[in-house]
């Protein structure tokens, strides 16, 4: 059941009605309803993986309590490592086993040892990377005594399986979401209205921008050997907007839906393509994952406190692991590695926290510099996206090489029966709308919001891509 499906359009009002009109007496009733709804939502993909979700929930719930109750450090450590091992074990088996087995066999074959790997015929349970990270952060926080264990199983289960964030985040923290789940929610018109605005804007991003960009990006990436330099550049830009519209659109819908139930989730995107350097980009892109890796990997590794080499090592580890989190493919590793290389000069010159302030543009030279830095950051991000989108690293390198060597900048007709340049006006308008509203969560609220909402709805209906339906990209992670 996707957020942009008819099924969800029926599911959501039913849950909303039951939540505020039938199960509204106590917090426990509200949470119980949301759990049932969440499990139903998840089972719409594959009910068999519901057992995995319930097991993972129970494991972290139980080990969390045991860690807190543990009288000796040895006992606490035992439960802690049990949870970490089993959680990462599941992730490893379902997501990474085939990749490692195939890569290892390839390595052996390359040195002359004949090996055929035993591969598992399993599909990746949707959302496993997200709910595993929920559980991990919870257990780690208890172990390091940052939070208390949750003894109410219903509340804890909802923290892990809350349907708006279950399959593609944002990756919540127990410190943020659990306190919200411990109190009865009262309906607030303003919050719910903001939620609706965010849902509508999320749909614009997904259905109008991401899915339309996808048809062009696919037509270019799938036939990059026959594309000229101009089309290849546009292909990278289209994919940049596809993945942004897709994932931030999903996050907007998730946050908006959650607001309808009186629950605020972590913000996941903050206009990342307006970043002035790559460090700022990573503070604005998939914020919940970046901050997760910062808090649970980078800082425990020593962060930026050690010497120069330690800083460099930690930077590469966090970016490469982040890339690998996205999927078991060398292309994601390369994408992470490339971002680490982008980040390195900022780290070495101690300027990775230069652009913390809001972007202001005026008619002066400084603003030209700011604009240039935004364009430059976007450009290098697009180069990295080529690795993320390509099927293999060889494809990605050939794609980029062809941009430089082909040198033909004419318009091409693509196999989706459109010209390669046709989408630029729509993207330009989208960027303009986001730029003018970059200080708000979404562009629909504020003055003349009724007209803005009507225009957004008109845009979704008239300009959305429906016949060439695309799943949310991050569901595969």
């Amino acid at each position, binding site marked *: 059941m996707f957020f942009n499906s008819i099924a969800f359009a029926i599911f959501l009002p039913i849950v909303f009605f039951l939540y505020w009109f039938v199960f509204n007496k106590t917090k426990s009733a509200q949470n119980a309803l949301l759990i049932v709804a969440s499990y139903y939502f998840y089972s719409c993909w594959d009910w068999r993986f519901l057992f995995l979700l319930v097991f993972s929930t129970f494991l972290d719930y139980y080990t969390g309590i045991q860690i807190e109750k543990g009288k000796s450090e040895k006992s606490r450590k035992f439960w802690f490592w049990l949870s970490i091992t089993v959680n990462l074990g599941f992730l490893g088996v379902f997501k990474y086993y085939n990749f490692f087995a195939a890569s290892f066999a390839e390595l052996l074959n390359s040195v002359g040892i004949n090996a055929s790997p035993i591969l598992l015929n399993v599909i990746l349970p949707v959302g496993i990377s997200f709910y595993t990270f929920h559980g991990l952060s919870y257990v780690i926080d208890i172990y390091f005594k940052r939070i208390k264990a949750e003894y109410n199983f219903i509340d804890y289960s909802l923290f892990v399986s809350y349907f708006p964030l279950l399959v593609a985040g944002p990756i919540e923290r127990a410190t943020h979401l659990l306190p919200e789940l411990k109190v009865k929610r009262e309906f607030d018109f303003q919050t719910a*209205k903001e939620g*609706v605005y965010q849902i509508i804007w999320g749909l614009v991003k997904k259905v109008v921008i991401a899915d339309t960009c996808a048809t062009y990006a696919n037509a270019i990436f799938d036939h990059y050997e026959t594309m000229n330099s101009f089309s290849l550049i546009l292909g990278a830009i289209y994919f940049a907007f596809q993945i942004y519209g897709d994932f931030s659109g999903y996050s907007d819908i998730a946050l908006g839906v959650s607001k309808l139930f009186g629950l605020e989730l972590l913000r996941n995107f903050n206009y990342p393509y307006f970043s002035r350097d790559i460090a700022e980009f990573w503070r604005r892109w998939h914020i919940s994952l970046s901050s997760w890796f910062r808090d649970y990997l980078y800082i425990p590794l020593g962060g930026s406190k050690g010497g120069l080499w330690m800083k460099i090592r930690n930077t590469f580890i966090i970016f490469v692991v982040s890339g690998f989190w996205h999927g078991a493919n060398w292309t994601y590793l390369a994408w992470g590695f490339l971002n680490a290389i982008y980040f390195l000069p900022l780290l070495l010159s101690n300027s990775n926290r230069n652009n913390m302030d809001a972007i202001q543009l005026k008619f002066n030279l400084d603003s030209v510099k700011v604009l240039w830095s935004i364009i430059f950051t976007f450009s290098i991000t697009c180069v990295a996206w080529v690795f993320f989108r390509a099927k293999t690293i060889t494809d990605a390198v050939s794609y980029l090489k062809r941009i430089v060597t082909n040198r033909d900048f004419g318009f091409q007709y693509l196999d989706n029966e*459109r010209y390669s340049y046709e989408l630029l006006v729509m993207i330009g308008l989208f960027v303009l709308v986001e730029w003018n509203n970059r200080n708000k969560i979404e562009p629909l609220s504020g003055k003349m919001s009724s007209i803005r*909402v009507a225009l957004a709805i*008109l845009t979704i209906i*008239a300009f959305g*891509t*429906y*016949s060439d339906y695309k799943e949310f990209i991050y569901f595969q992670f």
Partner: protein
Amino acid sequence: MKKFLIFIAKILVVVILIVIALDGFYTYVFLHSKNRGKIEKVFNSKEEKYDVIILGSSRANNHFVAQMFEDKGLKTFNYGMSGGHLFEASLMLKLMIERKYEIKNVILEADLNLSNDQESEGVSAKFLPYIHNSTVIKQHFASQKDFKELYYLPFYRFIKYDGKIGFREVFHVLEGEKTNPLDNLGYYPLVKHKSGNMKNNIVNLNPLPHNKYYEEIKNICRTNHINLIVVMTPMCENVKGMNYFDKVKNAYPEIHNYENVVIEDKYFSSCGHMNDEGARMFTSRILKDFFDINK
């Protein structure tokens, strides 16, 4: 909560108003479109007279050189539609009758397309803008499983088939941008491709014993006193011996088998489609067999 429910109700009203307005606007635009394709050409015309009408899929569209019929003094148009099935061919003929066309002969390409009686969504979608303005289109789609949504939900058909009749197509119509299906009297010549796919496995393909839309076309012609000529058109060398055309002949003895009129691959652009040279050889033979007044 009351305020919120009113807020949601307002949004729903806005959605309803928008879909109704867009439906009206898109329909209006398509009703005034004339140079984009064969379906709108027929829909926006009436009382035309033809000696020969050609119907079928791309294997009609690319194989019958309409100008060669004209050169014989036969007013002809090739209404073959690339990707189309007999579902669309039948509807096209019904639409012509509804538009009071006077037709003496219909040449129908019926071979591979006899193997199914489903609609070809990419082609049938182009009839949908007119569903509220044509009884035959409405009735033809009435048996489709999503007919109610297509007919009663405003703008649903434009959303479902946005790639074919969505805003891009509306924009092109408004621009007056011409397309090529109407060039060469509807015939679309193909060239010989070095990399043309000359393989097509039709061993397991079987014609339906009673193709609903083929029977419909026969009935329409009978009722309207139109001479119906049904032919199977040539395919590349690779399919020889796969006996699909024999199966068609067994099921429908009245269909003329022209599978072997053009044989060599050099006359083909791909396995199922002759190039212009092959199409001209084939059309000559059809003219000789069915329209040679000196015969």
